């Protein structure tokens, strides 16, 4: 599925870049993320515990901040698998400043497979968007801690 959208943050571009690429902040922002452990620079082992309604699952996988061009763009790659299925997502994240704010645009592809994709097909697209919304909302909160 296509994933694209825009979020505006009331913060300078450098700060937004920091929060969007630093594992310390990503760990708090990625929904259900319990741990991000660095394997190599920019690449992290991820454990996600996600629960929607009665469907709770632990997904183990990887998150990567790839091709960083500070402070304008990078590719965020996330993948994880668990008993309900697997998720894969890759998005180009671009930042640009607008007066005192920073506008973040993301454009990418997401894939959900396994049991949850078949049974939950009807709601997958909406839930993915909702989780992206949660991610960026949490990024907004992380910005306030800087």
């Amino acid at each position, binding site marked *: *599925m296509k994933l694209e959208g825009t979020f505006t943050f009331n913060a300078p571009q450098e700060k937004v870049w920091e929060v969007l690429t630093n594992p310390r902040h990503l760990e708090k922002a990625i929904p259900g993320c319990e741990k991000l452990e660095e394997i190599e620079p920019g690449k992290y082992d991820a454990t996600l515990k996600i629960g*929607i*309604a*009665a*469907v709770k699952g632990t997904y183990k996988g990887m998150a990567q901040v790839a091709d960083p061009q500070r402070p304008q763009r990078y590719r965020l790659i996330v993948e994880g698998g668990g008993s309900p299925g697997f998720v894969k997502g890759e998005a180009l994240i671009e930042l640009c400043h607008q007066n005192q704010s920073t506008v973040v645009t993301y454009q990418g592809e997401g894939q959900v497979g396994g049991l949850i994709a078949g*049974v939950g097909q*009807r*709601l997958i697209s*909406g839930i993915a*968007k909702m989780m992206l919304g949660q991610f960026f909302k949490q990024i907004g909160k992380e910005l306030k801690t800087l």
Partner: protein
Amino acid sequence: MKPCAFEYFSPQSVTEAVALLDRYGDDAKIIAGGQSLVPMMNFRLARPEILIDINGIRELEYIKTEGDELVIGALTRERDVEQSPLVIEKWPLLSKAVSYIGHSTIRNRGTIGGSLVHADPSAEIPTSLCALNGKVKVMGPSGEKELAPEEFFLTYLTTSLEPSDLLVEVRIPALPQKTGWSFRELSRRSGDFAIVAVGILLFTEKTGVCREARISMGGVAPTPVRAERAEALLAGQKISEKLIEQAAQQAAEETETEPDYHASAEYRRDMARVFVKRGLQEAWNMVNGGQ
């Protein structure tokens, strides 16, 4: 597949059920009709460690009026809501909406409370509750509270219930005399989940003017949606074909549709427009004698 093993409790009262929920919290799941939960358990997508079966709490099964409000116990089976003479006479939109739920066999077990807590945005009971301005009564360890739909439905399959809360009752206010209504649903096959579902109420005055309109749409957002701007277009107005079309167009713009195998986002949005239009026509004809 067969479900994972679980500890099973069968409380006989609301107090007992709430105490169990309080004790086990997040590890426990309530089972009522089981028509949504057990499929997930059979797939092993849901693996509650503890199942609290509330089917023994017969005190939660009732349909009655209190004053002029309709009051329905959470455990009431969907088929009983559908066939209740009281509901059919005074809140026919609810009966019609429930008749769209799956098939009769499912409605024999499924409960009104279960459907609300499951909070599927395409579901008929949540959508009609929003149209009817109904409320839910919830029991928790610290007592009882009443929630309006906008406080209750948060997003996909998610309500504001805490792990130790039990939904016990649904309350629906009386409808005025001259009410036109409609509940329509689009789906590929009879019994499928709605692509769009629309519940409409129109309250009129003698002069053929619409006093208040309520347009509730399911399947077009993370929760059921009231098309408030479309409703405002109609309030206090003399209804015409043109105004209905405008309102329907406006309602479609208040959706946040997503695609799936059955329908693209654009199609859903357009069907919201079509079904709001048809629903408004139906409701208006009903109360206006086909003018």
